[in-house]
């Protein structure tokens, strides 16, 4: 079977409540994910992540829709679907976080799925990933700056 999902996990030396806040609060999302985040982190809440390209000062906004919010155990959203559309399995990726207490620490798991179901014409699909990648490169540059500034 060809995999359709990415799964990653990490052990964090902090209570699940603290981890949940980092994942869901817009002010914190903008420190590990996007340059800016607007989001109502409740089930059905929608928002956007904005990625800024410093070289061109262009900004790219990405739609996001909360699928599940159960503090401090679970948070899930669909993202990157076209403006004016509802998120579906065919036009967006699903990100699911699960938080599990392990002693005083928290096991954070993330799954991103839907890569093979994205129903877009070939050319558009190639462009989709390019855009996606570009946003993430920009994001990483900022993230690295943030992290080194912290330590």
């Amino acid at each position, binding site marked *: *079977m*060809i*995999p359709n999902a*990415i799964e*990653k*996990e*990490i052990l*964090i*030396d*902090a*209570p699940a409540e*603290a*981890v949940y*806040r*980092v*994942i869901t609060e817009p*002010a*914190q999302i903008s*420190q*590990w*994910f996007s340059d800016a985040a607007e989001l109502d982190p409740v089930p059905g809440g929608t928002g956007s992540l904005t990625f800024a390209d410093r070289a061109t000062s262009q900004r790219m906004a990405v739609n996001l829709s909360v699928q599940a919010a159960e503090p401090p155990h679970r948070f899930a959203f669909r993202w990157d679907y076209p403006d004016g559309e509802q998120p579906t399995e065919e036009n967006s990726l699903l990100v699911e976080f699960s938080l599990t207490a392990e002693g005083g620490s*928290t096991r*954070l798991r*993330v799954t*991103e799925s839907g*890569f*093979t*179901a994205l*129903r877009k014409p*070939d050319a558009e*699909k*190639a462009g989709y*990933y390019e855009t*996606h*990648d570009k946003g*993430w490169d920009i*994001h*990483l540059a900022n*993230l690295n700056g*943030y*992290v080194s500034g*912290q*330590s």
Partner: protein
Amino acid sequence: MSQGSPEAAGRDLTPGEDELWEAVADPSRRKVLDLILAHGQATPTTLAAELPFTRQAVAKHLAVLARAGLIEAQRHGREVRYTARPERVSAAAQAMARTAQAMATAAARWDRRLDAIKRLAESQARTSPAEPPEGF
């Protein structure tokens, strides 16, 4: 060697990648496709002889591959021969490669995001264990 009419080829290129994915996601089905590609053409009988599947299973795999446009059938008397459609096989291979690449990139990025989440949460837990970060 492609026997499909241009019209049919044009039509069959439009179905979404869903059918392609369904067709190539199954390892047994990929074996059937591999054999057809290796031999240029094959009949259900020759395939069943070479593969550890029943004729019935082979027929099922052939139907899915044909529906995805990856192979096509020609009747020769009482026999049905299957040939691969290179443009569709290539489209499937490209779709798989593109998706695999996108997933590898996404996986690397989630690693870094999780690292950043860890740093943020741990620094907040250290500095103010019982208070929200903006509690000052």
